Each structure stands twice: as C-alpha cells, then as structure tokens.
C-alpha cells in the first residue's frame, strides 16, 4: 500500500520536475539569474581581492610596530556571495512565483486535473508530487548557481576554508528556503484561484506586501514613531570624543580614551543599548512576516559578519571600547561590546530566529494548499 502510494508521488514529481526544467519561463528567469550571478561574482571577487590586499598591507605594517587602534579583519570569501544574495532576494522570489503560480490552475484550465484525479492516485500524492518536483527543480537551479560560483572562485585562485564552505552551504540552504517560500505562496494561490491570471495577481500582491511594504514599516521614521527617538549623547561626552575615519574600510570609528570609566558614558551606553534592543525587537516582529527581510537579515549576517568585525588591540594595559557604525548595513546598528572574533557557531546561532521564521512561511502556505487541494471539488 505504502509502496503504491510512493509510486504515484514519484510519478507526479518526476513529471513536474521535467515540466519545470523544460519550461521557457524557468529557463529564461534562471538564465538571467545565472548571468547576473556570475557577473556579480566576478565583481565581488575583485572587491575581495582588493580588501585582501589592504588587509595584507595593514598586517605587514602592524607587524613591524606596536600600535593602538583598529585593523580590518582578514576579508572572508563570503563577501563575494553578498552580490548573489542581493539579486536572489528579488529574482529568486520571481523564480519561485513563476514556478508555482499556475501549477494547479493550469491543470484546472486544461481540464487535465480531472483526468489525472480519475486515475488510481491519492490527492495528497498529486499535491506533494507537485511540491517535490518544484523542490527538485529549485535544488538543481541553486546547485548549478553555487557550483558555478565555487568554480569561479577557484578559477580566481580563491580556495574557501572549511568554515567558509559551511557558510556557503548555509547560504545555499537559506536561499533555497527563501525561493521555496515564494513557490509555496504561489502554489497556494494557484490552488485557491480559478485561473492562472488571478493566481498570479494575488501572489504578486502578497509579494509586494511582504517584500516592500513590511520593510518600509521598519524605516527610521516609522521605528522612531513606534520605539521613540534614540537617547541623545550628553554634551560632556561629545567634547571628549575623537573621531577617526578609516578610509580603507570606509567605516567611521568613534573612540573614547578611558571611556569605560566615565559614569556619563556608562549611563548613555545603557540607554542606547536598551533603545536599540527595543528597535531590534520591533524589527524582528516585522521581519517574522517578511521572508525577504528574514532572508536579507540572514544573508547579511553570513556574508558581512566578518568584514564589519573590528579587531581591538590592547595597548599599555588600558581597555579600548569601540563603537562601530557599519557602512554595509542599510540600517544603522549600535554595537558597544568589546569585539571578539565571530565564529561560525555564533553566526549560525544568530540566524536561528530568522531561519525558523523562514521555515514557518512555506510550511504554513503548503499546509493551506494541501488542505484546500484535498477538499477541492473537481468539476
């Protein structure tokens, strides 16, 4: 019985997979994405090599003298994937929608669903088979993109280390989950709509809401309306402040000598930290409802965690506290902690809430599609 059921599932999945990979819309979007990804990779690699040279120069300079200050960390190969992530957050969503929006409506319109369901096959095999075929096609598409990306890295003589390979795998998995999220939203709309046109329009409305409207809700104006204005720095501290601009990394570094011992600084620091925690929590709530925000957040952590990290050097036994304003983030972040090397486990730990939110979305929409398809009258 079980074997019979599996047989129907794989028969449908097999057909769906080949339908996807031979469909013109899939080939077209995938080709565009592939070209953009390769061009982005080459650009990213050029930037990486430039950053690497800066790092090497700084390292050779600091090794010959004792300095007090900051130095960029060794750039990570992951920065190269930042460009792919940028395009994936848009083109990936389009690919997912294009693959899913007419999956059921097309069969309703051509009347082939009636024929298909008159055969000895369970309905769940049909809907699961469609999802499985889509998953396999998406997996293939991402596998090709990541393989080509790795190949491009190797052609340029860049060999990722073990940790970076893990992060690339995580990047691939998260990207897959992100595209599958939009695929499942489109599949749901295809199941509930009577025709492909309606399914596409409804899917695009959801796409616009969760990819554009929700991120707009987290801009500074809205955030300050909800969380209030950030605490102002006391004037006495401003007078003591020294501002240095690190031209090489384009990061603005603000430092205080012996700031850790100032009560005014500590008070300001505590208030600011509480404020940002509040803002982050509010943003987190918005992000939960936006796969695009979750994806951006995860990929940002994966691809930029190492580059924004600063190294603090102890000099003459005095503590140095750094305030880093990352230029790579669209949202200002406030980090007052003493910097430490961020390990892979730390990065992975940091993306878990977004990852869970990214898992919940496709799970919910697929469950809704499943429930609707199982109860649907086929006329």
């Amino acid at each position, binding site marked *: 019985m079980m074997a019979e059921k599996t047989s129907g599932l794989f028969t449908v999945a097999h057909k769906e997979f080949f339908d996807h990979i031979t469909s013109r819309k899939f080939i077209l979007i995938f080709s565009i994405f592939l070209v953009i990804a390769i061009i982005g990779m080459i650009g990213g690699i050029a930037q990486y090599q430039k950053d690497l040279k800066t790092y090497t120069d700084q390292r050779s300079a600091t090794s010959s003298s004792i300095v007090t200050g900051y130095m960029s960390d060794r750039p990570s190969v992951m920065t190269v994937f930042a460009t792919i992530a940028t395009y994936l957050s848009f083109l990936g969503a389009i690919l997912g929608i294009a693959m899913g929006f007419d999956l059921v409506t097309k069969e309703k319109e051509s009347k082939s669903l009636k024929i*298909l369901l008159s055969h*000895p096959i369970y309905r769940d095999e049909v809907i699961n088979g469609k999802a499985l075929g889509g998953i396999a096609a998406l997996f293939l598409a991402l596998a090709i993109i990541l393989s080509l990306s790795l190949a491009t890295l190797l052609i340029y003589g860049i060999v990722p280390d073990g940790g970076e390979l893990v992060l690339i795998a995580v990047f691939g998995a998260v990207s897959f989950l992100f595209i599958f999220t939009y695929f499942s939203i489109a599949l749901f709309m295809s199941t509930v709509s009577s025709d492909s046109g309606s399914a596409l329009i409804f899917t695009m409305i959801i796409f616009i809401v969760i990819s554009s409207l929700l991120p707009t809700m987290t801009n500074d104006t809205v955030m300050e309306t909800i969380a209030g204005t950030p605490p102002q720095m006391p004037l006495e501290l401003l007078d003591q402040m020294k501002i240095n601009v690190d031209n090489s990394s384009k990061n603005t570094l603000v430092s205080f000598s012996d700031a850790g011992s100032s009560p005014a600084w500590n008070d300001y620091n505590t208030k600011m930290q509480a404020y940002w925690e509040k803002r982050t929590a509010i943003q987190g709530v918005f992000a939960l409802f936006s796969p695009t925000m979750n994806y951006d957040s995860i990929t940002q952590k994966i691809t930029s965690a190492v580059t924004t990290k600063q190294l603090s050097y102890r000099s003459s036994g005095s503590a140095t506290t750094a305030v880093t304003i990352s230029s790579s983030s669209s949202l200002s972040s406030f980090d007052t902690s003493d910097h430490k090397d961020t390990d892979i486990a730390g990065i992975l730990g940091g993306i878990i809430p977004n990852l869970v939110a990214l898992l919940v979305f496709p799970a919910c929409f697929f469950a809704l599609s499943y429930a609707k398809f199982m109860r649907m009258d086929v006329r």
Partner: protein
Amino acid sequence: MIQFEHLTKTYNGINAVEDLSAEIRDGEIYGLLGPNGAGKSTTILMLTGLIEPTAGRCLVAGMDVTKNPVAVKERIGYMPEDVGFYANLSAEENLDYFARLYRMDRDVQKKKISDLLSLVGLDGVTKEVGGYSKGMRQRLGLAKALLNDPSVIVLDEPTANLDPQGVADYRRIITGIAGSGTTVFVSSHILAEVSRVCTRVGILARGRLIVQGSVQELAGRIGSCGEHRTVIRIESRSPMPVFQHPAITGTEYSNDRCSATVTATEDLRDVIADYLAVNGILIRQLSKDECSLEDTFLSFYQEAS
C-alpha cells in the same frame, strides 16, 4: 456492476442530483439522457470519485466509491466531456504518464499504448496534444479510458466532437468492448447516438431519474409520438367509409377519402383492416406512427417538468 443508492448532490442548497437509485448490470451499455443541467455530469463525477455525494452512495463492483476511491479507479476508465491532456506532451507521452499511475509493466504498457493509439486512429501522430483538434482529443480520451482494461467505462458525451468516421469507430469500439463483458455507462444528449448503442437508458430531469428501460420499452410505455394516443395512417384504392369506434378520438380524410389519419387511444390497426375488408376496400397502406427516442425523451421530460 454499478449501483446508485439514493445518490444526492447539493450545491448551495440546490439538488443537482436527487435521490438517484439505479443498477447497471455487467456488460450493459447504459445511456444516461437528459437536457443540460439535468445532473448527468454530476452523477458521473460522483461515480468516478471526483466529487463526494451529499447523501447516498455509488458502488462499483460492490465497492463504495467514496470509501475506496483508488480501488474503484483501478477498475474504471473515464473519459470526460471536455477531455483534457497535457498540451506539451504527445499522445504517446500522455498515455505513458497515465499508464504509470496504473503501475503497469513497462513492456505491457508500451504495447498497450501502441495498440490503443492504433485502435482510435492516432498511430503515427507524433505532434504535441496542444495541436490536436477536439475530435482528436476525444479519440485520445477514448484510448485513455481503455488503458487499464477497465471493467467499467464511463463516457461523458463521447461523440460530441467526433466526425462521422470517428462516431462509427466509437460505436464499433464500444459495442465490441461491451460484448466482452465490460459495462459501459454513457452520458449524452445526442439521442440518436444513445438509441443506436445503448441497451438501456435512463432519463434524468432536474436531478431526478424519472424513467429507465430499453428504448423500445420506453417508447411502448408512452404510446406514440410522445402523447397517450396512437396515430394510424391509411391509404386505400377506393374511398373509405366513416370509421366508428369508442377508442377513436379523431379522423381526418383526404378529399377523395382514399387516405385517412385516425387518432385513437389504442392501436386499432387490426380493427380497421377487418372493417375495410368487410366493406370490400383494398388497402394500399396501413401503418402506425413510430415514436422516436427524441419524442419519448421530450415526452418524459415534459411530464417531469
């Protein structure tokens, strides 16, 4: 082989099919007749397990369709009215996909598909189904319905788009299959087609099965020409006398009285023949108007309305 037990389907409070009960025997070709919206397709969709009845049940070979949908679908072959296939696949590829759902042996499957395409006249057609005419799709639909050697074939308006050759092929195939013991359930509004192929018909009106039986039985039950009267046409070589009989409700004569049309509540042909013989009138023609299936259908339908 097929049983409908108090089958009812309700959409938005309106009964599309209401308390339908019927039994169709092995090897029978049963035609379900009815005007548009009578509930024929809804009945077929419940029989094939595509929609669930609101009440009652359908049984195929003793199995409840709702409770054992997959087991029932193993035994039936179905061709819907608006038969749909995958437009990007050829006829052979479409049949190959559906055959895999029956878990047929690959070699058997290949031969079966080749034989069926030849049977319906689509052998050698390699183009994608998207480029097929409606008639070609219907032929392919018939081949698909026969793919699993079903014990029950369900056909919804099978000849709606077929050309004369296609209709002739369809008749040949269906009668041949029924002859080998397969039960055929046909829904149609093409009355002439049903009367030529079906061994028994049921007339559905407003979701209710109002009458069923052989075409001859139905015609006999209603009299001739859809009314409770018999029309007898007479031609003689010399003028006829006036007919008088309690069953006669009207008589029309020609000017020369050599032809007449008698309307009566019963068949009076023998009485009229005897009467004319006694009066020395030689008969050129004496006939009763035969009732067509169309007349019968309309009569029952009007009665139900």
